[in-house]
């Protein structure tokens, strides 16, 4: 029996001699390559730096497909700013953001010349994610490895929150904490006044509304005694928020048949994900006369045509 096996084996090898030799050599080559790659693997040091993990966690993370794309966009933007390629860097910014933050290329150029006066490097950190908008904290600073912080007493940096909005499978980039802009057509009208809210700008920490006020009467229409008066608020799922002094802070008093368009601002953090449900005007006065004199205010109120409040749903 063993003789038969030996004969069969010998005949097999005789017949397929070259195939056997080539097979053994191929196996040897693959084995050695495998060993080589196993020894050559790069060890990645342990670090706490995780740029894709959001600082404010609300269950959303930047999808894997966008992580590298976002990093590349930021890298390209910073490099273009370093190289003073103003127009190319400017065009990377979302159009709505450009109009709001840098209305002209010259405005953007002034920013670049100021921040990037010397070559800069940067670090990124995912800050928060909500509603397909991914916000990154970007710190821009001198190339500290090249300077060793010589002549500096401390580490200084410029910080920006850049947002990346996913729309129809594409990403658009905004800077300077600008998040989004909505065009509105919310109108309130009664026999005395007309209020049209035409635009809402969402920044990281505030909402700003563009509002046109029109007085339809021959009397004075006192809408607000100033930003700090609390006469204008926005209503949210979590409660009311007063108007802030940023934006327009003066009293809103319309003369007979007068109109004015203003931007009114409210402090509201985008991260909270709280919806704005309405804008409340809680002390509208239609006055027969208005002097602006505090001592006459009580008398003017007593002679008022109408005192009322209302909320415009948003």
């Amino acid at each position, binding site marked *: 029996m063993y003789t038969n096996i030996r004969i069969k084996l010998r005949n097999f090898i005789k017949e397929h001699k*070259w195939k056997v*030799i*080539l097979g053994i*050599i*191929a196996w*040897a*080559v693959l084995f*050695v*390559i495998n*060993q*080589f790659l196993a*020894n050559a693997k*790069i*060890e*990645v*040091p*342990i*670090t*706490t*730096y995780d*740029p894709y993990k959001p600082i404010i966690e609300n269950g959303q993370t930047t999808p894997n497909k966008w992580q590298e794309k976002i990093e590349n966009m930021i890298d390209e933007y910073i490099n273009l700013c370093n190289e003073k390629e103003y127009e190319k860097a400017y065009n990377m910014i979302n159009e709505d953001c450009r109009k709001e933050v840098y209305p002209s290329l010259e405005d953007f150029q002034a920013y670049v010349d100021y921040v990037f006066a010397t070559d800069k*490097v*940067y*670090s*990124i*950190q995912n800050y928060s994610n909500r509603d397909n908008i991914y916000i990154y904290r970007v*710190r821009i*600073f001198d*190339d*500290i*490895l*090249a*300077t*060793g*912080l*010589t*002549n*500096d007493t401390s*580490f200084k*940096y410029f910080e920006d929150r850049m947002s990346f909005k996913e729309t129809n499978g594409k990403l658009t980039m905004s800077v300077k904490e600008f998040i989004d802009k909505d065009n509105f057509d919310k109108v309130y009208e009664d026999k005395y006044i007309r209020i049209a809210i035409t635009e809402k700008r969402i920044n990281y920490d505030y909402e700003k509304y563009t509002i046109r006020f029109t007085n339809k009467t021959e009397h004075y229409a006192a809408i607000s005694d100033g930003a700090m008066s609390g006469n204008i608020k926005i209503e949210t799922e979590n409660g009311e928020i007063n108007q802030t002094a940023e934006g327009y802070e003066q009293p809103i008093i319309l003369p007979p048949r007068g109109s004015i368009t203003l931007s009114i601002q409210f402090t509201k953090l985008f991260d909270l994900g709280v919806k704005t449900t309405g804008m409340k005007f809680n002390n509208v006065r239609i006055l027969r006369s208005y002097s602006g004199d505090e001592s006459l205010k009580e008398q003017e109120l007593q002679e008022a045509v109408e005192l009322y409040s209302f909320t415009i749903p948003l």
Partner: protein
Amino acid sequence: MKEDKKTRNKINTEKRKLIIKLAVISLCIIVILVLLILLLKPNREVDLEDGTKTQEAIQENREEKITDYVRTRGEKERMQVYLSEFLKHIEKGEYKEAYSRLYTKFKRNYFPTLETFTEYAKKYYSSFMSVTHEDIQRQGKYYILTVKIKDLAITQYEIEQMYVIYEKGLNDYYISFQVKY
């Protein structure tokens, strides 16, 4: 005639096949040999007549030990080790080794040659220093260490200084520092 031609063609074809097979086998053997050579770590420990190792071998040994040490350490400890090693080179007068760790642009800015760095190191560092770590912060991939360095050899003079470290890999880093004038 025809049969001769057929036989000649057959012989040529066989020859060609054999040459190809030999070429393939030779190539595979060469690849295996090259990879084996690369796999085997070269033994640089040259025993001289008096039994001492070369400076290069000692340094390589030390670097391997440091790499093994930092492999399982957290980032804070690794940065402290890197800074410590950098300053040890200066303490021992190993200016070339210390210079090799400096970031290229930093060298260009402040120490374009080894001589300028050596001159600086001799002036501002001593052969016996103590280091107190005051602060460490990470900015992205950059680490900024604030330390107090005291000259224990002669003057007892103490300075506060910042160092910047960028880690490319385990025990593979760039370093730069606040240059004093």
